[in-house]
């Protein structure tokens, strides 16, 4: 039966599907977490004093979720297209064996459905765990002890998640139908790998680009640090522009610059496959520097938003503390009628806006992180597919499997690590600037929030990196 074939394809091809599946699962997980906020203990407590605020927060989350689902839909479509390209031959073979086009569509339909269901289940399960973490985080930020910190399960949010993602799957299915129907058999059989024109950049030029990029970045940093982040004026826009341009030029020139440096250092350059990796990297830079820039900026947003929203929370806390300590016991008694009462009401007053900032920040941050990691992973995987022939030549020349594996690792590591590294530097400067603002309100503890942000990044980004590396190594191994 059909479902059986689909099931077999899915289980056997799980490694091909892995990035697609992971993106869906993480997407579902994050989506669920932030749509089940209404059942969070922190929100229940807040609702007891400020029901209007809770409504507002949930409304904001709803609106944000629409945006997020559009982003996720694009990601899922992108991942799906990549997977379809990878399976072209296989699908073509089905047609060749006499499977009618309509049946092929049905097969794909079943596969998407199966993976979708699997991802929904896993994602929601993960989301329930994630919600637990989120409650722990919020409650600790509010310094409220809740005796029972149980799993948050919200039926309505599950329903909403399923609804939104079903629409997404529907879009994917329609897309698959169209692309299968429009493609002739012959197209499915032959890889349409376009002959990429290899333009090797002129090295002096890239050194120039690189130096210019660094200079621009430094001046953007200087503007930011000298003027602070709050001055939303002409200079701020100039800073943004210079920063973005600097990032672009930095990535445009970096590979050439490093290539130039290493070529001077011959023992390094002519060691193992270093030469190959460097050339490979700089040969591809024409098609990758733009996406590296975009990914770097997305990562910056992810880091910046989550770190700042967490940091701001802490800052508000400490300003509250300052406020409290500025009052005498007598005043406390007069205004609030007791210390405990005062704590309660002061915290709750700020709680609403704090929660809003925190949740929105984390939500957006996670989505940005997810998007950049997924895009990067897919890009690297399709580049690997283009590299098959090159690695084949290396194998024929007698390069050991391990050496080739290391070259693959280096290539993918560079692609993942560089945007992240620059984004972290950007974010560090930005947070320093923001600190000086926030510190005026209260003392900012970025330590804890940075650790938390780092954990998110490590988990999501790290998983994608690992999958990409393993996937690439497999692609290169299977074709020999």
């Amino acid at each position, binding site marked *: 039966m059909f479902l059986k074939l689909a099931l077999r394809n899915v289980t056997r091809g799980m490694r091909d599907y892995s990035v697609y599946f992971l993106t869906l699962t993480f997407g579902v997980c994050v989506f669920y977490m932030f749509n089940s906020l209404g059942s969070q203990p922190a929100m229940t407590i807040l609702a007891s004093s400020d029901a209007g605020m809770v409504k507002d927060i949930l409304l904001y989350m709803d609106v944000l979720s629409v945006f997020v689902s559009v982003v996720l839909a694009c990601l899922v479509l992108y991942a799906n297209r990549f997977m379809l390209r990878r399976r072209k031959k296989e699908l073509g073979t089905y047609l060749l064996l006499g499977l009618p086009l309509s049946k092929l569509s049905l097969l794909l339909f079943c596969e998407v459905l199966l993976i979708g269901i699997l991802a929904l289940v896993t994602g929601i399960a993960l989301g329930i765990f994630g919600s637990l973490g989120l409650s722990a985080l919020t409650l600790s930020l509010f310094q409220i002890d809740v005796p029972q910190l149980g799993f948050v399960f919200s039926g309505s949010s599950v329903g909403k998640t399923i609804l939104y993602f079903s629409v997404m799957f529907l879009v994917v299915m329609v897309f698959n139908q169209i692309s299968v129907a429009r493609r002739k058999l012959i197209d499915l059989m032959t890889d349409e790998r376009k002959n990429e024109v290899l333009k090797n950049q002129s090295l002096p030029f890239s050194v120039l680009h690189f130096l210019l990029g660094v200079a621009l970045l430094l001046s953007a940093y200087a503007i930011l640090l000298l003027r602070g982040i709050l001055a939303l004026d002409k200079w701020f826009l100039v800073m943004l522009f210079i920063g973005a341009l600097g990032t672009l030029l930095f990535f445009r020139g970096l590979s050439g610059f490093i290539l130039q440096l290493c070529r001077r250092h011959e023992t390094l350059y002519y060691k193992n496959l270093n030469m190959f990796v460097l050339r490979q990297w700089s040969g591809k830079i024409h098609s990758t520097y733009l996406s590296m820039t975009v990914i770097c900026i997305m990562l910056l947003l992810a880091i910046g938003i989550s770190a700042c929203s967490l940091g701001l929370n802490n800052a508000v806390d400490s300003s509250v503390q300052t406020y409290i300590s500025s009052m005498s016991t007598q005043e406390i008694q007069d205004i609030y009628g007791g210390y405990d009462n005062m704590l309660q009401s002061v915290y709750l007053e700020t709680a609403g806006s704090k929660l809003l900032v925190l949740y929105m920040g984390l939500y957006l941050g996670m989505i940005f992180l997810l998007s950049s990691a997924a895009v990067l992973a897919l890009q690297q995987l399709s580049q690997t597919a283009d590299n098959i022939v090159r690695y084949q030549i*290396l194998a024929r*020349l*007698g390069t050991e*499997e391990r050496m080739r594996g290391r070259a693959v690792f280096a290539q993918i590591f560079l692609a993942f690590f560089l945007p992240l590294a620059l984004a972290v530097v950007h974010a560090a400067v930005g947070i320093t600037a923001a600190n000086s603002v926030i510190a005026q309100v209260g003392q900012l503890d970025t330590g804890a929030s940075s650790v938390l942000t780092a954990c998110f990044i490590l988990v999501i980004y790290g998983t994608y990196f690992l999958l990409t590396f393993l996937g690439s190594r497999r692609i290169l191994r299977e074709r020999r």
Partner: protein
Amino acid sequence: MEPILTAVQLKKVYGGRGNQSSALSDVNFKVFPGEFTGIMGASGSGKTTLLNCISTIDRPTGGSIIVDGQDVTALKPAALSSFRRERLGFVFQDCNLLDTLTVFENIALALTILKTPVSELKSSVRETANLLGIGDVLDKFPYQISGGQRQRAAAARAIITKPALLLADEPTGALDSKSARLLLERLDELNRERGATILMVTHDAFTASWCRRILFLKDGSIYAVLDRGEADRQDFFHRIMEIVSELGGDETHVS
């Protein structure tokens, strides 16, 4: 003299149960050091299969291949890699050079994976490139040079490690007759002056006439062996053509 290559009862069967097709059956031959041997045969006669088995890219189904005293059919993957980079040199019809590396780097690559020190590497690349007449295109990328220069660069990469055995699968397949001649002259020179052992697959009787000995394959087994002896290339060419037409190949006709 010990043979550098011995093929014993070589068999290769493609496909699994049901739809088996035999590409090589009972191929036996020897190649001695310093020989320039050609392999000819009609399309599908098993030339590439034979070369792939010798170059350890493919494993034969039966029989053994002894290169330099070592049975390569029994080698493990790691040993195979080291065998390839230390003992063999390859020139293939296409997909030869890495398009992201310069010609210099492409040639040097064979040495870097052998972990040759840099000082030795540079002079060695220059010397080999000059020998093949591509000393002036070393800093260019493969797409910036002609097809003939590319083939010579691939040949340079193959011989720079001083392999025990140089394997070439239709090295002139993509070349016009003038570039083909240039490359063949170099291979001939290498063979005579440096004593390189060469095994070359070709379709083409003209290319084959540069060899000292030709093995003719038909349907996966050796049909005839032709020794050049003292004959000159013209004579040898005619003798090759005779066998080719006997084999019913398409080379006798101008198409």
